[in-house]
């Protein structure tokens, strides 16, 4: 059994209440942290080696130390709880079952950063989670962990939950800040980074839910203890959201460094591929990371086992590797159509593009249409190279990483499953999957795409 730092008490009845959460040692880190200096807390987080759990993997302590501290200007901590990357649902799980873990982390982190007002930006669709968090915040405030003069230390903190309006792009930190200011979620050009000019132009740190929750065990046990868990620069534990054709999909906390094979097949985790099928491919870190065929999921190019760590998953670059991302692990069984799934992801990115940058606004729609006509039997052989070409022209040419996120799944699917794309052109009737209930659902788009011949 791997060590659990975040989900240790997940099955304890009532752990969502302050009373039970405190019985299990909750809010110790607040009592401890408020006796430390903010610099000491930042130092512990640096020592822990914690890397941002939202997807980018940037060292959290270093991010904190970049925060500008001009006199007389407020600073903000904003928690990014706008989880909506396909395949990723760990933050929702954590907030639903252990809301106080996030609130406790917010208090310690806000104190470390000198923030007097902090916001948890939750995607609007998560109304039940918003209600859960608001109830938990009220409990924490009644107990003196929030509000004026926390635990008699003279530190004041107000914590609010902000609902989004339904837009994946608001998971990008500057789009999130725009949204929090009551605007459309259009990402800002960086620099300046939020650490210099963030919310209302003030110094701001934006951290993922899991990163903030991880600050609690780091303060309780010390950064050095946290760094002992994991492997190499991938320290600590990570929540992995497992979905797709697995026997037991769900949210698992793993120690970084666990072999991917063990994660998929062992009974402690996913229990293998559902219905006795074979594994065909995986997406290891949420839909935006490159897809990998089964053999490269389990083994590195040199034959060594691939591990669940930032370094091992990206081993070999995008030719034979992928990324840890947000830890959204999707498994595809042997019956799944990679063209259809790539089309589905492409539709997602087209739908969610904010429209600010031309390569992303136009390119994502173009890729969706071409993939759709391939899937529906109207594709041409040249479409495959066209897709690769369009994906290259989006990648790196946009303000925010949504363009890259839209390009990588398409480029990697063609890299590893090109024969399947070709088969769709050669055998359009055989390859069309009539097993779906909505075969006609998007057919008008295909016809439009054909008449406009890109």
């Amino acid at each position, binding site marked *: 059994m791997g060590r659990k730092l975040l989900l240790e008490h997940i099955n304890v009845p009532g752990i969502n209440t302050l009373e039970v959460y405190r019985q299990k040692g909750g809010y110790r880190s607040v009592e401890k942290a408020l006796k430390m200096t903010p610099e000491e807390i930042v130092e512990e987080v640096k020592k822990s080696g914690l890397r941002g759990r939202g997807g980018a993997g940037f060292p959290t302590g270093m991010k904190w130390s970049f925060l500008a501290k001009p006199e007389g200007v407020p600073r903000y901590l904003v928690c990014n709880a706008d989880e*909506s990357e*396909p395949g990723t*649902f760990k933050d929702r799980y954590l907030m639903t079952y252990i809301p106080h873990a996030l609130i406790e982390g917010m208090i310690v982190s806000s104190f470390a950063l000198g923030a007097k007002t902090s916001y948890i930006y939750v995607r609007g*669709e998560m109304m039940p989670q918003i209600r859960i968090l608001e109830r938990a915040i009220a409990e924490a405030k009644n107990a003196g962990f929030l509000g004026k003069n926390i635990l008699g230390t003279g530190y004041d903190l107000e914590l609010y939950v902000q609902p989004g*309006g339904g837009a994946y792009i608001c998971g990008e930190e500057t789009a999130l800040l725009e949204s929090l200011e*009551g605007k459309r979620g259009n990402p800002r050009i960086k620099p300046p980074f939020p650490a210099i000019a963030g919310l209302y132009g003030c110094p701001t740190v934006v951290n993922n839910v899991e990163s903030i929750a991880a600050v609690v065990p780091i303060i309780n046990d010390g950064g050095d203890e946290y760094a002992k868990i994991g492997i190499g620069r991938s320290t600590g534990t990570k929540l992995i959201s497992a979905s797709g054709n697995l026997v037991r999909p*769900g949210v698992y906390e793993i120690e970084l460094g666990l072999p991917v094979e063990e994660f998929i097949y062992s009974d402690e985790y996913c229990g293998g591929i559902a219905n006795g099928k074979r594994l065909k491919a995986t997406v290891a870190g949420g839909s935006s990371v490159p897809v990998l065929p089964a053999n490269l999921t389990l083994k590195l190019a040199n034959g060594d086992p691939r591990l669940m760590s930032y370094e091992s998953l990206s081993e070999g670059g995008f030719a034979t590797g992928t990324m840890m991302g947000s830890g959204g692990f999707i498994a595809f069984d042997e019956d799944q159509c990679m063209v259809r799934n790539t089309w589905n992801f492409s539709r997602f990115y087209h739908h969610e593009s904010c429209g600010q940058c031309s390569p992303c606004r136009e390119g994502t729609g173009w890729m969706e249409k071409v993939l759709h006509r391939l899937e529906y039997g109207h594709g041409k052989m040249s479409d495959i190279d066209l897709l690769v070409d369009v994906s290259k022209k989006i990648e790196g040419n946009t303000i925010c990483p949504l363009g890259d996120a839209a390009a990588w799944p398409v480029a990697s699917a063609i890299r590893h499953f090109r024969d399947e794309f070709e088969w769709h052109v050669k055998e359009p009737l055989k390859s069309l999957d009539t097993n*779906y209930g909505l075969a006609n659902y998007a057919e008008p788009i295909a016809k439009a795409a054909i008449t406009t011949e890109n």
Partner: protein
Amino acid sequence: MLKVEEQQPVEFSSALLEKFDELVKRYPEGKQKSALLPVLHETQAELGWLSPAAMDKVAAYLDILPIEVYEVASFYTMYFLKPQGKYMLEVCRTGPCCLVGAEKLMGHIEKTLGVKEGEVTADGLFSWRGVECLAACGFGPVLQIGPEYTFYENLDEQKVDKLIEDLRNK
């Protein structure tokens, strides 16, 4: 969306205005525009959708231009710019949910309700639509129902039939 005939005056209840007042307090002085998204959620929960007149009223309350409200309301997918059924069934149609049968489920809902995506049933009770990732990929297929956004996981056709039947009899 700004047709003149839709410009019927709206009234906000005092309870709604009280909620607005609470929300605005969460932000620094002069940054009341930050309350726009939550204020629109509250308005939609009370009125069912966001008419131009309602958005104008929100703009006046927050002391911002009407266009600042329209551009936000039209950007985010959760705001309805035309009336919907009393219950809006939103089915996740993104990759992981489709791997476990979401598309079939959408076909079933279309057949059961007898209306296409985005349309309202004759009795005004239901509309449905496919939405992008609802962040519950391990428990798919999933759907949620506004305005409370109650959430249902691990669905199949029988469970959805029961759900629709229960809402009809409510």
